[in-house]
């Protein structure tokens, strides 16, 4: 899928204002949280029902594109320096690549086997056992990779969460 957080001190240009970093960190944090919650809900088909599952999956695809776009700098930088990076960075890159492939195929196959969303839009596609199998396999693979992807950045998540908890808006008297 993506990328790690783009706001780590080592990866950001020094000239960027503090205020902008905070806004970007906030956007990354809430967007990543939204993706995690949306995927968790989408995977729980029995809870959501087929209609919510499908529309949520399509929405997830759109948010995923935005998430990837926001972290594209990281993708380019890490890919270019892949051989010079340490083992951990290489492992994160590999997990992210696998997640990107798995989630893309999961969403694409989900659209191709859609029973509610596409017919509601007047689009009819023939049923395919191949895409049904791909959807099941990639969904399970994504379920394994999403928590690994998030947990590999747990220090950043914990750091931002701590800052949110500590942050208090200034009160005018």
């Amino acid at each position, binding site marked *: 899928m993506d990328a790690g957080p783009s706001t780590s001190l080592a990866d950001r240009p020094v000239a960027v204002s503090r205020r902008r970093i905070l806004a970007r960190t906030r956007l990354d944090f809430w967007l990543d949280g939204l993706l995690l919650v949306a995927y968790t809900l989408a995977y*729980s088909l029995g*809870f959501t029902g087929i209609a919510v599952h499908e529309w949520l999956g399509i929405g997830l695809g759109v948010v995923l594109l935005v998430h990837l776009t926001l972290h594209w700098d990281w993708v380019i930088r890490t890919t270019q320096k892949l051989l010079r990076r340490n083992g951990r960075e290489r492992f994160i890159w590999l997990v992210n690549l696998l997640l990107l492939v798995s989630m893309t195929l999961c969403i694409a196959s989900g659209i191709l086997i859609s029973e509610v969303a596409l*017919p509601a839009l007047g689009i009819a596609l023939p049923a*395919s*056992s191949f895409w049904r199998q791909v959807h099941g396999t990639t969904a399970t693979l994504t379920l394994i990779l999403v928590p690994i992807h998030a947990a590999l950045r747990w220090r950043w998540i914990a750091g931002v969460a701590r800052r949110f908890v500590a942050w208090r808006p200034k009160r005018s008297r």
Partner: protein
Amino acid sequence: MKFLRHFTAVVLVVAVIVGLGMLWAHTSGGGTGHAEHAPPREVILRVQQIKAGVIRVQSGDGFSLANTSDLIRTCLIEAVLVALVITVSAAWRRRRRIRRTAVRGSG
């Protein structure tokens, strides 16, 4: 402008992955079929029934509280994996720190 450029690159990468998936489906003979393959009769019938309202399509308010166990199971799987990765990562960092301290101490 930068966002648009990056967005285009992302869409291209995603298109390549989907394209490779389509190729995979085509080579294994399991694709959705195109102009030369007509959709199976039961699919056409099903779509016609949905359009005619014979088959009622579930609307967006499909959350089923009776199946919360499904959601809980997903959350549990994710929580276990997160805990596992964090534990391994923390142990790895601690080991690296101890090794560094030992090297500094001997040097």
